[in-house]
């Protein structure tokens, strides 16, 4: 009685808590999970004794919690690859104590492997196979059966008519296990392994690597070649083989238990046929290995392993895995990175910085949101204030020096990272070290970079701050003060045709005139485009737009909110003025003219105007590529607006598609229900028939909406690509007829921006490949431009 009342009053307020009675098994399961996940952490005892203790505890719990333990171990195999050898040792110890459990675990892992492959979770599948291969070292799995599994994987390279990325991935999986298990497999089955090797070698020789240039962060080979990932891994494994599989970096706790483990009975892996290729399979994209440091960059302390050493591969793999596991919790992530086992033998700070920048600059897109990397680096600086900031400064300096050959998308990310980073450290930087950028063509990457960094830094602070932080010599690179430029500012503008109207409109707005009144005023504005009176015909009058918008935005210039409010209040008028495409284009032109010193404001206004349907996405694209904006074409804000516009279009399509799916689901459920309940009552039947009818109508409407949205989306990409082709062709023709070098800074920027559109929106663009190839990227196109398209196609061959 009293207990019930108590729980009633609980539900009113705070969260209901677990009832004591049923929580015990849950508590034990949580405890098991915690013990397993945290084994070896924060302990005064050695890892080995912790593992021994845990094995004992788990063995004792097997009778009651076997399934739970199996599931937890399968999960850590899949989700904690950086602690691979810790858990394989644990499984080894359990297998030695309980052979059946070892067998059940192997079976569970195979089931999990099949599941992950079915669900396109290829990265996790690699971790599972690596785990299985390390179990050979722990005497859980017999070496010959592992070799047999590898042979089955490599046989995929013999398949015909499959995408290259499929066979790539199976080869990668096998090669990436060899640092852990190569020695053992070679000792037991050297002939088979040699045969495997020559098969792999043959495959790699025949691979098409057209995609590689598109994924390289730098176009230059020096100082560090940006290698295609499989090429690099193959070189590393070959070197390991030449060194007779001597590898000293990987932490192998099982060595300490060798006497126990070699007494254990091994299991054979069941024969595993790789699942066949499915058309909807999404294999991982090919990669290029990012390298920015070598042993010469870390002159003091431990030596950095070479680019083709297997140690380098293992370290980078593990650091990537740590970030993958802990990216949401920056303090934990930083701590885990800095406590990497074996850190005393390597220049860990350099590896960490290289791996983080590698992810940040990864093409097509970083694995995680950009801002995570900024905050992670700040956290690392906090934890290692005596050493990491220096490495980071060194890295920044190196990145600056190599800007000339850096991919434009990567430069964008560097600009955003550096400005945000500086804003957390009072913008302190040795700008004088970069004074070389002041003496070259300002369109070159270095001065452009500094200019954009200062512009972004200003957005996070204010104009005078920028003047204060850079030497006087940098004055030309400081951005303009972000002030509104009002055409009809004062008496000196009185000769302009729109001046009188601007005064009238301005007063009308200030006196809270109605939309009708304002429209009436605007009707009187002369049209510079036509001679005769034309009351009825709503022909395009650019001056009307100019006068109204300049005046309105001037009155609302105080803040973003003021401007948004203005756009909202006069939405009706703006819609009327932009009914036609010319109107839409002109409104964008005016926004640029008044706010050209405040690109951030331009971006937010354009965003608002798209969202409130004053302009559409295609109009924005046409405006950015127009002659009026040609002089701004290489500025970062232009591309941020373009990509933001494409993203909005994509989200819009997705939203309507989702609505359609939901309506279809609803209809299905309704029909299902009607079949079950049919015959009960005539009324109910009729009601549900009506409902179904309504749903069917809704679905039809949504279907039309989806088609219309997709058509708009396709059109947007067509407009963008068409404009690129026109601009690039013009440039190429001009250079060829004039016998001039085509590779100007403008050209490099433009062609890489084209690449960027493909890379950033590849998922959406894949849908329209047919149209693109038929209409735009035909064989008649200049080979320089066509090459970009072909490289893009090669990404998912």
């Amino acid at each position, binding site marked *: 009685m009293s207990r019930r009342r108590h729980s009633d009053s609980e*539900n*009113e*307020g*705070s*969260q209901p808590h677990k009832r004591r009675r049923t929580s015990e098994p849950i508590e034990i399961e*949580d405890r098991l*999970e*915690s013990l397993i*996940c*945290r084994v070896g952490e924060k302990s005064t005892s050695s890892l080995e004794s912790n593992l021994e203790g845990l094995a004992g505890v788990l063995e004792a719990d097997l009778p009651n919690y076997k399934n*739970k333990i199996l*599931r*937890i171990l*399968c*999960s*850590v195999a*899949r*989700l*904690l690859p950086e602690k691979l050898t810790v858990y394989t040792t644990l499984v080894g110890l359990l297998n030695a104590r309980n052979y059946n459990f070892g067998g059940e675990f192997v079976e*569970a892992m195979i*089931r*999990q492997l099949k*599941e992950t492959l079915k669900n396109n979770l290829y990265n996790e599948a690699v971790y599972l196979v690596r785990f299985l291969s390390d179990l050979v070292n722990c005497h859980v799995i017999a070496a010959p059966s592992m070799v047999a599994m590898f042979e089955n994987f490599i046989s995929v390279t013999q398949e015909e008519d499959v995408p290259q990325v499929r066979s790539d991935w199976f080869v990668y999986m096998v090669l990436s296990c060899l640092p852990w298990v190569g020695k053992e497999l070679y000792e037991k089955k050297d002939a088979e392994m040699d045969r495997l090797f020559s098969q792999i070698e043959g495959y790699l020789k025949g691979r098409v690597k057209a995609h590689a240039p598109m994924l390289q962060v730098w176009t230059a080979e020096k100082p560090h070649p940006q290698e295609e990932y499989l090429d690099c891994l193959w070189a590393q494994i070959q070197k390991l083989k030449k060194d007779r599989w001597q590898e000293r970096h990987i932490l192998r706790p099982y060595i300490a238990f060798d006497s126990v483990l070699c007494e254990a009975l091994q299991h054979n892996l069941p024969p595993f046929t790789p699942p066949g290729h499915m058309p909807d399979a999404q294999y991982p994209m090919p990669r290029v290995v990012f390298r920015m440091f070598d042993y010469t960059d870390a002159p003091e302390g431990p030596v950095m392993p070479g680019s083709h050493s297997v140690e380098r591969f293992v370290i980078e793999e593990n650091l990537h895995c740590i970030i993958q*596991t802990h990216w*949401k*919790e*920056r303090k*934990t992530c930083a701590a885990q990175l800095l406590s990497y086992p074996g850190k005393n033998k390597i220049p860990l700070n350099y590896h960490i910085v290289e791996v983080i920048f590698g992810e940040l600059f990864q093409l097509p897109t970083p694995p995680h*949101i*950009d*801002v*995570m990397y*900024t*905050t992670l680096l*700040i956290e690392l600086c906090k934890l290692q204030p005596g050493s990491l900031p220096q490495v980071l400064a060194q890295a920044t300096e190196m990145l600056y020096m190599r800007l000339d050959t850096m991919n434009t998308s990567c430069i964008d990310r560097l600009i*955003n990272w550096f400005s*945000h980073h500086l*804003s*957390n450290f*009072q913008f302190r930087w040795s700008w004088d070290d970069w004074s070389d950028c002041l003496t070259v063509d300002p369109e070159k990457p270095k001065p452009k970079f500094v200019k954009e960094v200062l512009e*972004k830094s200003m*957005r*996070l*602070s*204010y104009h005078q701050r920028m003047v204060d932080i850079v030497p006087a010599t940098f004055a030309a690179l400081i951005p303009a003060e*972000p002030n509104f430029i009002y055409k009809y500012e004062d008496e000196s503008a009185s000769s302009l045709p729109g001046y009188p109207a601007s005064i009238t409109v301005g007063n009308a707005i200030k006196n809270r005139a109605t939309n009708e009144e304002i429209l009436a005023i605007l009707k009187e504005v002369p049209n510079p485009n036509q001679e005769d009176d034309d009351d009825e015909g709503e022909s395009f009058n650019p001056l009307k737009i100019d006068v109204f918008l300049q005046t309105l935005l001037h009155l609302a210039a105080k*803040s*973003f*909110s003021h401007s948004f409010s203005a756009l909202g209040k006069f939405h009706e008028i703006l819609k009327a003025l932009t009914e036609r495409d010319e109107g839409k284009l002109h409104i964008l032109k005016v926004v640029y003219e008044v706010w050209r010193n405040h690109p*951030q*404001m331009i971006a*937010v206004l354009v*965003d608002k105007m798209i969202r409130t349907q004053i302009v559409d996405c295609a109009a924005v694209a046409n405006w950015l590529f127009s002659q009026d904006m040609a002089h701004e074409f290489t500025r970062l804000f232009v591309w941020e607006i373009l990509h*933001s516009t494409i993203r909005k279009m994509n989200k819009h399509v997705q939203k309507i598609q989702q609505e359609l799916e939901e309506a279809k689901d609803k209809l299905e459920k309704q029909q299902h229900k009607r079949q079950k309940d049919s015959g009960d009552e005539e009324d109910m039947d009729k009601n549900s028939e009506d409902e179904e009818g309504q749903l069917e109508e809704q679905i039809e409407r949504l279907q039309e909406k989806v088609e219309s949205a997709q058509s708009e989306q396709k059109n947007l990409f067509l407009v963008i690509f068409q404009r690129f082709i026109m601009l690039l062709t013009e440039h190429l023709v001009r250079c060829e007829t004039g016998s001039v070098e085509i590779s100007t800074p403008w050209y490099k920027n433009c062609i890489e921006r084209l690449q960027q559109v493909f890379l950033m929106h590849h998922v959406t663009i894949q849908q329209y490949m047919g149209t693109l190839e038929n209409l735009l990227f035909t064989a008649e196109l200049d080979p320089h431009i066509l090459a970009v398209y072909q490289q893009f196609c090669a990404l998912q061959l």
Partner: protein
Amino acid sequence: MSVKLNALVSDSYVDVSQYRDQHFKGNRYDQEKLLKQSHTLYVGNLSFYSTEDQVHEIFSKSGDVKRIVIGLDKVKKTACGFCFVEYYTRTGAENAMRFINGTRLDDRIIRTDWDAGFKEGRQYGRGKSGGQVRDEYRQDYDPARGGYVVCDFHTCSWSTCCSPTYSVIAFIISMDRFCIHS
């Protein structure tokens, strides 16, 4: 097959804090629910001089920002050091909690927290003098937040407050104490 490991799904930066808006209209259960679904963040410890532009720039790094409402002194109608940031998606707000909370804007470490949703009236400070309550009790000199706290003990109105030596409660009780100004 395998389980989602609780130890690994920790996302503590996204957790709700202990603070609850005492003026919230509704019961605790509703408030919790709204906080867990919210797209809106409260942002605190801003400089009085931080602008909407700056707030927009930094918070856009975690997602598209739908709206910013700058907190105002109820009397002076000027910025008083806080704001609300509303995202179009929950993910945008979550990433702000993970990666922007606890970093600097205008050289100050800013703090973000989940908010149940902006309602008209909530853009005003609730301190007696018009600014934020926390500025009533601040004892340090903060030039970006109005300098020292000043109290007029005749009218017992505070524009920020108070003496370094005595607690606020003690001061109210013993109104003949004199407050140190700056």
